């Protein structure tokens, strides 16, 4: 039984990170926005929904929606400097915004309980689901969210809106010359991406039932980047496959420590080293990732 429980845990974490990778792919792969602060959405989503439920007793559905809205608003705030910063400098700014969000969670103890984190986050619909079936139920819930987000984002990227985003990614000046308000489009893209990231954060908090600033370090952002580098940019299947590959590796090696004669510290370091090597290998030999961006063909 423990092995089945572990597999369900693994799949659920893959699912949650798929959402984060899809959101990041929407920014990087479609709009060309190099966001190194993706974890901020994850963090805001997790803290908002869990604090609303734990401290304010807000219904879970409302808490999820508010969490998504707040992450979306944070996406809007993050997009403001794109007006004056070139993309590489904006990328540095996003790295900072990710850390700022985590540091606020760490230091504003009156709101977030600081380093102790938020404890006792209740399980959703706990009374209705038998205890044994709960992990499977939650996994199905996460999968349902993935399907919804997949459809939602695909509808957007296949629309004239998505076409404008791709054009910003490839040739921003051309977009301006065609009368597109690129600033506004980037802003809208960041709101969409933030909302999806907030959903992932809420799902994570109510799954783990305990969150602390430790969960939202910059390394999480780089795992999400590894997912879209391995999976491929400019399509959502790639993001999901990338999440599978990286999470499979990242989560399963955590438990391998018991069987490998290495200390847990060296295991953790080794894990990151191998992910780094994987990224380099992909950039060298398969820069487009496992799944290429699909060409949009009209007949």
């Amino acid at each position, binding site marked *: 039984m423990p092995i089945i429980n572990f597999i369900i845990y693994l799949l659920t974490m893959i699912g949650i990170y798929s959402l984060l990778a899809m959101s990041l792919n929407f920014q990087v792969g479609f709009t060309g926005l190099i966001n190194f602060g993706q974890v901020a959405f994850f963090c805001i989503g997790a803290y908002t929904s869990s604090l609303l439920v734990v401290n304010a007793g807000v219904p879970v559905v409302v808490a999820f929606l508010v969490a998504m809205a707040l992450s979306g608003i944070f996406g809007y705030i993050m997009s403001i400097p794109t007006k004056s910063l070139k993309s590489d400098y904006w990328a540095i700014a996003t790295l900072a915004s990710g850390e700022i969000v985590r540091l606020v969670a760490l230091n504003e103890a009156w709101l977030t309980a600081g380093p102790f984190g938020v404890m006792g986050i209740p399980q959703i619909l706990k009374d209705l689901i038998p205890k044994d079936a709960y992990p499977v139920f939650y996994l199905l819930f996460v999968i349902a969210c993935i399907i919804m987000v997949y459809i*939602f984002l695909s*509808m*957007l990227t296949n*629309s*004239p*809106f*998505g*076409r*404008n985003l*791709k*054009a910003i*990614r*490839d*040739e921003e*000046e*051309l*977009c*301006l*010359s*065609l*009368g*597109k*308000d*690129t600033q506004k489009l980037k802003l*809208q893209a960041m*709101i*969409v991406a933030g909302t999806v990231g907030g959903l992932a954060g809420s799902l994570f908090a109510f799954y783990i039932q305990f969150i602390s600033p430790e969960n939202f370090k910059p390394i999480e952002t780089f795992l999400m980047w590894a997912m879209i580098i391995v999976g491929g940019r*400019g399509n959502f299947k790639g993001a999901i496959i990338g999440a599978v590959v990286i999470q499979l590796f990242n989560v399963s090696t955590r438990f391998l420590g018991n069987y490998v004669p290495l200390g847990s510290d060296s295991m953790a370091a080794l894990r990151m080293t191998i992910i780094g090597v994987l990224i380099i290998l992909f950039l060298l030999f398969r820069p487009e990732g496992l799944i290429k*961006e699909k*060409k*949009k*063909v*009209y007949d």
Partner: protein
Amino acid sequence: MLTIKNLEKRFGSLRALDDVSLEVEDDSIVGLIGPNGSGKTTLFNVVSGFYEKDGGEVYFKGERIDGLPPNKIAKKGLCRTFQVSKAPEKMTVLENMLLAAKRQLGENPFSALFMRPRVQKSEKANLDMALELLDMLQLSQLKNDYAGDLSGGQKKLLSLGRVFMLKPDMILLDEPTAGVNPTLRVQLMEAIRQLQKMERKAFFIIEHSMKVISNICDKVYVLNFGKKIAEGTPEEIQQNEQVLEAYLSGA
């Protein structure tokens, strides 16, 4: 249609545009020529809002447009192409054309999600128009190729197609025929002529080929070292000694 008054643009101590005044009248084709580095493209960049001016005024359809961002100027009906064609690498030729279409539905997330039937209908109409234009530009067989894979000349044609999709009132063309084969070049010029006659659009064209200029332009302005040194009909310009000197000393 377009009135430029005492336009100035400096890059450091270099006067790229020095007190340039000119006018493009309604439904006319006006040429802009001059040696390399004389400020032609700079003039386009300032007029289309990509550069900030250092002095002077620009009016389009009687309205002052200097200081507006490029997308607002394009929305007002003044559109441009680039000397080095811009072609989104990972977008097909048809996507490029559809990208440019004017007043599209579904350009924001909300309408893209909730007005899909209407968006699809407008896409269909734009698609028909795009195919027709591609036919005229002889790009039909490349419609599903990535724009990044086109040759330089084909990119020039595509940028013309995109601008036509926008249906502007006035078009600034920066060397529209550079790299285009001679037969097609003639056809292109013919297409521009027809468009100007039928739809009464104004064109302002930077061009190096005197032949092209004298074939289609009603009026020509000549720039040298950022200054306007001559204006007149193509015949007058070809006789103008100052112009000949500028071109010969540069060559």
